[in-house]
């Protein structure tokens, strides 16, 4: 009875000692390779004590002074591939992966962190070991880059996309910027590069010295495509200040998508009046257009349709007040062909060419062209002396309050009739005019 039990026990001891050599002859003891035993997140074979999976014993004696008893079961990446197959199938490989230099990132026995890496979620220290740190030291950083979450966007080993991205650029971006993607899908107007191209066309995905980590500051970034605007900004006498100021093009335009044509943040009038509806804009302050328009009975055509850019160039112009045609800055400027193009671009071109007319103006006494009388000749007066350019409570946009003449506002006292009218301005005594039956002077 006792003999079989003894035999069994001996058999068990033998099998155990050969089946699990670690238990039988462990490499990791308090005396040898103890550090490996202390690893918090060991490599699986290390955990199982399967040192022979990677280290093959060459010589029976161990340790041997001045020589190695063990060698690696395979060379570099090939050794790892014994278990970790499935690499090398995709188009783009991370250089160390291609070279089989797995241990340039991974510690083969394990580390205190996951994935045999010496870094945690913040991979900065590891990746900067090879990669240029400059983009990661910028003023404005993309969130994941700022906290070293390189793997939020990049595959560490291989990818079918360039730069080891996890997918096509847009898809990678919009996976996190999902609310942006949803709003864009519902937007009325989308900036074509936002709709079709990679976000990196404008943004540096890691970081830059420009707010919103743009590749270049605005307007330089925008005029890369919008070359005409760039040419204009470079050569124009009066650029529109917001274009060159902090915020650049984004002061008026929405960079990605919007409700209005021209990618304006809102409709034209709202955008323009957001600055030009204040009393303190500039030194000396520009007129508050909002108060100019408020409650007025008559609006200048383009103003009525909310189209400021019909007359003004929002990017810049060589003309007075950013107008699209020439217009004199002074109060007095006798008419010459070309001087009043800002107005005559829409209004009758022959208005000021002939001293008598039955065709070109209703402001005439019989045939005598009274516009000609006022604007042509030595003391030619500009349109603004009588007409408000934006809005007025007076017919024909004739100013009711009067026009600023130094310290005085000259009243006009314009009265209109069915065939003519009269003015009793602060310039001359009351004169009547009639198209049908000319009034005597």
């Amino acid at each position, binding site marked *: 009875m006792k003999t079989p039990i003894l035999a069994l026990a001996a058999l068990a001891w033998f099998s155990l000692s050969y089946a699990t050599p670690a238990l039988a002859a462990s490499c990791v003891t308090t005396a040898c390779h103890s550090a490996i035993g202390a690893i918090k997140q060991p490599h699986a074979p290390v955990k199982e004590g399967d040192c022979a999976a990677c280290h093959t014993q060459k010589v029976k004696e161990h340790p041997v002074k001045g020589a190695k008893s063990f060698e690696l079961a395979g060379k570099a990446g090939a050794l790892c591939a014994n278990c970790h197959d499935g690499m090398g199938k995709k188009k783009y490989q991370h250089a160390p992966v291609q070279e089989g230099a797995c241990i340039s990132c991974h510690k083969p026995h394990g580390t205190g962190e996951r994935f045999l890496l010496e870094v945690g979620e913040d991979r900065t220290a590891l990746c900067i070991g090879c990669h240029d740190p400059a983009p990661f030291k910028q003023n404005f950083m993309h969130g994941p880059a700022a906290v070293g979450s390189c793997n939020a966007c990049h595959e560490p080993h291989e990818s079918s996309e360039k730069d080891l991205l996890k997918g096509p650029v847009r898809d990678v971006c919009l996976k996190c910027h999902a609310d942006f993607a949803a709003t864009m899908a519902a937007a009325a107007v989308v900036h074509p590069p936002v709709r079709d191209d990679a976000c990196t066309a404008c943004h540096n995905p890691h970081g830059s010295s420009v707010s919103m980590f743009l590749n270049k500051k605005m307007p330089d970034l925008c005029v890369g495509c919008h070359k005409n605007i760039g040419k204009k900004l470079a050569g124009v006498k009066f650029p529109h200040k917001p274009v060159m100021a902090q915020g650049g093009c984004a002061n008026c335009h929405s960079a990605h998508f919007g409700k209005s044509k021209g990618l304006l943040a809102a409709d034209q009038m709202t955008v323009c009046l957001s600055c030009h509806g204040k009393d303190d804009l500039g030194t000396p302050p520009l007129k508050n257009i909002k108060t100019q328009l408020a409650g007025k009975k008559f609006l200048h055509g383009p103003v009525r349709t909310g189209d400021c850019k019909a007359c003004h*160039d929002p990017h810049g112009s060589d*003309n007075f007040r950013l*107008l*699209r*045609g*020439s217009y004199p800055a002074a109060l007095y400027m006798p008419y010459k*062909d*070309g001087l009043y*193009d*800002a107005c*005559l*671009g*829409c209004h009758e*071109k*022959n208005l000021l*060419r*002939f001293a*008598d*007319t*039955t*065709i070109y103006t209703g402001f005439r006494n019989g*045939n005598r062209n009274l516009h000609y009388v006022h604007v042509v000749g030595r003391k030619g007066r500009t349109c603004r002396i009588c007409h408000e350019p934006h809005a007025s409570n007076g017919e024909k946009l004739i100013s009711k309050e009067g026009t600023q003449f130094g310290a005085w506002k000259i009243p006009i006292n314009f009265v209109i009739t069915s065939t003519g009218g009269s003015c009793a301005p602060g310039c001359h005594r009351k004169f009547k005019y009639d198209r049908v039956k000319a009034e005597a002077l």
Partner: protein
Amino acid sequence: MHKASKDLSRTRYFSRSLLIILSGALLMAGCAGPQVAKKGPVFFPGPPNEPKVQFLKSISGSADVEDQRSKLQLLVSGATEKDTNRPIVRPYGVRYVKGKLYVSDTQGPSTVDIMDLRNKSFNYLKENPGRGQLKKPINLEVDVDGSVYVADTLKKEVMIYDPTGTFVGSLGREQNMKPVDVALDKDFIYALDLNDSDIKIYDRKTLQYVRSIGKTEDKSQGLALPTNLTIDDKGLIYVTNITDATVKIYDKDGHFINKIGQLGDALGEFTRPKGIAVDPQHRIWVVDGAFQNVQVFNENRRMLMFFGDPPLVAGALNLPAGIALTTEDLDYFQTLADPDFILEQVIFVTNQMGDAKVSIYGLGHKKGSAPTSTAVPAPLPGAKPEGSAGQTGK
């Protein structure tokens, strides 16, 4: 006779008769009549350029308009084709209004020929013996209701006929003028006076003389022996002048606006500018009697093309004078055009000489191509924009 000579004379007889027959056949060939060569469509400009104008047909008299009487009818009636044809002899003015073609003919008979091409009718303006009789109708204008205003240089008046052709009044006797053309607008009648080189304006309702325009301070801008005028839909008056071979443009107040061309033979210049017309796209069509062509300009006075210069297989002009344009009845005129050439407008030009007294052309485009336009191509970079008053902006 010897038997031999009998044989010889028989042979001689045979060959002689053969000779007679042959020569007779050759002579008879002259009676075969003119060979009619098969002609293809006549386009301007010529191939390989894209065609813009096609010559459609010409009219020389009623025979080209009315249904042809059959040969049997002629035989029975005893008349010849020559008897029934009423020729157009020396035409000048031409108009196409409400489906009818009006041509003023100064000779045989001196009257206005009124043709309905679609319905194949050819009539003369109603006879108005006495006061209303036309003597030398040079030019004419037709109102949309069918009233006809005729400038008669022998009577020295503008004669006015109502839509039935009845004489209703005249202008110009008191002014002692030589009216060579007449134009209308809503309120006034404009008579072009060759004697005074001006335009005399009359009130339409009262037929009273109102004023004259056309004389300017700067003589080079004034009318100089003007022959034809037309008014466009913007109210601008275009007048051709003999003295300086120009087209001068005025507004209705008589202010000089612009001029086209000068004496010369370069493109866009004139020698004998005569008939003038402006189409709805503001293209200006000018007949030159000496170049024997029509030059076409856009409203910026840039020459677009010219056509009709002889010699041509067909469609050449011959001492041309008047011109009329229409966009009516394009479906009818399309039947005269090449099926792949889509008509946009029809042009009538009168010729004072030759067989074709009224030449009809069509302006259009090849099927599949864009319609004709007056778009001025963008200026070359660095070029100064042309036109007056230096328009900038917009």
